[in-house]
């Protein structure tokens, strides 16, 4: 059996694991869990309001926060657990041989740990919290790794929408699995080859600050050579740049690119971006509701068919809903609920009698 190592963000920068490697390991672990029937938990973690903190205090603060969170997570992981960073600064974790109950305990520990972190910025102490979405493979029916990630993502969205600082498992496995299968079927029908799943893990590490003792840019280095040529072509004296940290150059370019994207979003379509986010939240809420109602609707339709077959009469849709969703004699709480219904009825009958009495003698008032 292959031995999986902990994938650390810093290691990925040193070429031990690429983004693809991290994701492949996660998928392989998921498949192995399915084959050998051991429990596996997927967790998606996000720092609450990270974008706003970045806007207020800059990229460096965001990086520092992400690094601190990753360090905290590392301290809680076993060697067999897997960790990757997604493109939108979320952290994806896969815990083999972990039950949903243990995942809950772990999530609580992470939440408590994050609350204790402090960051000093511009004379202010920043505190942070996390939102966590959880999913696991202890569900009946078919499941794929994409579905587990989608359910964890859904949980994270709910946790974030509720104000953060919490973990949520939404249990919408069948909804996402159905969606995935429907998409696959549609592609098959259209004669397309199976879709290659979109990459989940980006494995982009937080940007490290320039290292005083790190490597330096030289004309012998391929990046250095390319950079010097570029500068020369633009009329600059490239020799002035020999000796700077190549990682710092890469960071600066990456930051400039991201800044450009952020500015484009902020300045050209701020209202649309906000609207889209709002709509997405509404869609998510509705999808969750649809999933719950689908089950009830299935039962209702089944009952409709049965009644239509047996009696050949139309009871009217609303009444059918009552017969399906209403109180039934074989329910475990039947006696208790019936007694409650009787109490409500009696209170309302008393109210009705009072009103009728008043209608008959409108001059009298009751105290």
């Amino acid at each position: 059996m292959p031995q999986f190592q902990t994938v650390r963000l810093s290691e990925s920068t040193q070429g031990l694991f690429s983004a693809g490697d991290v994701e492949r390991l996660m998928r392989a672990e998921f498949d192995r869990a399915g084959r050998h029937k051991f429990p596996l938990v997927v967790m998606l973690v996000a720092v609450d309001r990270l974008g706003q903190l970045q806007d207020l205090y800059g990229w460096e603060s965001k990086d520092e926060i992400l690094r601190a969170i990753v360090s905290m997570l590392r301290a809680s992981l076993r060697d067999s657990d897997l960790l990757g960073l997604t493109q939108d600064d979320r952290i994806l974790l896969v815990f083999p041989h972990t039950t949903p109950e243990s995942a809950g305990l772990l999530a609580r520990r992470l939440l408590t740990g994050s609350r204790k972190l402090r960051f000093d910025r511009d004379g202010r102490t920043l505190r942070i919290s996390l939102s966590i979405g959880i999913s696991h493979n202890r569900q009946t029916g078919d499941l794929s790794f994409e579905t587990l990630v989608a359910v964890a993502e859904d949980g994270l969205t709910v946790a974030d929408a509720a104000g953060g600082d919490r973990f949520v498992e939404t249990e919408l496995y069948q909804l996402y699995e159905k969606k995935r299968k429907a998409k696959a079927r549609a592609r098959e029908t259209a004669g397309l080859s199976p879709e290659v799943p979109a990459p989940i893990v980006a494995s982009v590490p937080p940007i490290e600050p320039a290292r005083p003792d790190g490597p330096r840019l030289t004309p012998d280095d391929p990046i250095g050579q390319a950079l010097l040529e570029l500068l020369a072509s633009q009329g600059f004296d490239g020799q002035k740049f020999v000796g700077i940290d190549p990682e710092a150059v890469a960071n600066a370019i990456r930051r400039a690119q991201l800044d450009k994207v952020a500015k484009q979003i902020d300045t050209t379509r701020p209202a649309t971006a906000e609207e889209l986010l709002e709509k997405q939240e509404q869609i998510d809420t509705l999808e969750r509701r649809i999933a719950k109602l689908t089950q009830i609707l299935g039962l209702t339709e089944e009952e409709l068919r049965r009644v239509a077959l047996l009696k050949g009469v139309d009871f009217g849709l609303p009444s059918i809903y009552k017969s399906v969703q209403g109180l039934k004699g074989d329910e475990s709480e039947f006696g208790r609920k019936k007694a409650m219904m009787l109490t409500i009825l009696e209170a309302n009958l008393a109210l009705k009698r009072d009103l009728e009495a008043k209608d008959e003698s409108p001059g009298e008032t009751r105290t």
Partner: protein
Amino acid sequence: MSPDAKSETNIKKDQGVLYMGIDLGTSRTSVASSNGVRTTLSSHVGYPKDVVSRKLLGRDVLYGDEALEHRLSLKFFRPLAAGVLKQSQHKAEDVAGNLKAAADLLTEIIRLGKPRADELVYAVIGVPAQAAIHHKEAIVKAARESCDAVMLCSEPFAVAYGLDMLEDVLVVDIGAGTTDLCRMHGTMPEDSDQITTTYAGDYVDEKLADLVRKRYPKAQFTTRMIKEIKERHANVSDTSPAVVVDLPVDGKPTPFDITEDLRAACRSIAPPLVEGLSQLIATFDPEFQHRLKNRVLLAGGGSQIKGLDLAIEDEMRRRLGHGRVLRIEEPVYGGANGALKIAHDMPPEYWEKLK
């Protein structure tokens, strides 16, 4: 009538029944119907003030946000103050006006539930846990105009019933006018199991208005503006983002940072709510008190204040040792869904008695 004919008549009567659950709230009125329709309407009703406004608006009565938008041209009613029909003012005209507005509001919400013309409407309406008898009578009176049979039940009970949480649960239903606290222990809650307070959405609005007024005396605003700000940004978390809003000063929109004030106003309801919860817990069987503390169900529009569940948990930890708060998934429809479930579960013969 022969027994067969009678039986046939009964079946026919049941064919065309539309069951409805209605949450009649100070701020919003929501309905969930057995035909699958769910909708919500802000609890405002307006009648054109004069012939000119009648001609301009083109209708005799306006509801919800539309009424709010045109309130200056309307005789405007918010008929459900503190969760019950406004009757405390002694002017007979106001009482009659509010009653008519409430009846019209119910008629409109039932219309939005899309009943067919040929079907009966049976409705369960959630009312505040400790609504006075005359308020209940007024609501029934108003509802009778558009329902064939109507029942009232306690709002927090409806929420818990809708979620099948009938045992060892403390429901906190935060509305605009009132917050209802209800202790569920497997039987129908009695008066001693329920507390109604006015530490609710309107209280937060007033508190926020006071704080903003004190900090920024020159800022001009109305309660409506404050309510909108609260609904958009309410958050009690220490790590909540900054809330900077534009309020007019001498007619010029000016930015004001109200982060701290909003947080303080939203948090202000947590201590009195936990005080109420403490009362319900302390008077419960000591052997089962810990179960109640572990199942506090947060519902109603006010539960949408971000982080309020955690703030209540903190307060419970401080006062009661520990506490666990669960937020209902659908704050707007929790009461209506529960009332609909009661309507469904109510045996047909019970409904017949109320027709």
